[in-house]
């Protein structure tokens, strides 16, 4: 039981997931404002949304 708990803790570590969400937000913002490809602009909002929701959730994970 405790082994399972520690495994979960290791997987859901705040720093890793929070950083991943931050990267997603920044990539999304780049996609929104870049002048290169229309498809990137089209999918930018969904990337930002996932990153933002991810950030809100993962910032509540234990350190």
């Amino acid at each position: 039981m405790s082994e399972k708990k520690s495994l979960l803790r290791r997987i859901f570590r705040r720093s890793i997931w929070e950083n991943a969400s931050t990267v997603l937000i920044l990539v999304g913002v780049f996609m929104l404002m870049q002048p290169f490809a229309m498809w990137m602009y089209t999918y930018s909002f969904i990337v930002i949304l996932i990153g933002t929701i991810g950030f809100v959730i993962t910032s509540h994970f234990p350190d």
Partner: protein
Amino acid sequence: MKSVAKKFKGLSDKAIAWIFIAPTLILLLAINIYPLIYAIRMSFTNFYANKIGREVKFVGLKNYKKILGKEEIWEKMQITAHFVCWTLVIQALIGLGLALLLNKKFKGNELLTTLIVLPMMLSPAVVGVFWTYLYNPQVGLFNYVVNFFYDFGIFDMIGSSTLAPWSIVIVDTWMWTPFTMLICLAGLRSIPNYLYEAAEVDRASKWQQFIHITLPSVLPFLLLALLFRGIENFKMFDLVAELTSGGPGSATELASINLKREAFEKWKTGYSSAFAVILFVTIFGFGNVYVKVMNKIKDR
């Protein structure tokens, strides 16, 4: 005073705390949260604010698909990107440079700091109006100064579609570089002197001291200022609306100005709500990154 104390008698500390917080909470809910939820709801409809009797239909994600598939909006995002990127780069360089200069002790330092900070204290609408006069091709001071160095003839910053995007960059830089400078100055003043003394003992040159002590210490502060300015400039409206109103053509039509046009000139309320939600989520995401950086600085 006594009667207030009597009234509160018998109430727990928690209840008193709630009584004090309640007005703020109610205001926040009424002014911020309710309109936000209402706007999100509107973004899924075909509502037109000028057609009151018209049936409002639920259109699902149609408004979002329209915005994210429109090249015209993509262009507005690029115009916003041009504005945000250039203002950030220029403000970072000049702001850091000014902070380094003002960190030195010299006569009139405090007066100079106050003078540099002045533009930041003005209202953006006022700044917009007087820069319109400064940019005036016939009587504007800007035109005169440029022609003093090189004879361009009539130099119309706001009237030319290639120069107009730069005109808003210049004004924003003029107004907000002092903010970047102040934050950097705070960072510079927090560097302990013994680090420089130790570096001098180790015979580090001024350049090495700057690269290995000053820059790493001031960088988080600079990043914080730039993130804040990035968020502010992404939703920039008043200054540009007053200065160019998005013109000539749509050369300076930032996302927020386009949003205002869709909402209050074409009255596409549902569509513009969806656009506002997209901008909101982007700024909210940016805001999270901002808070994260700020916490990191606090932990240092």
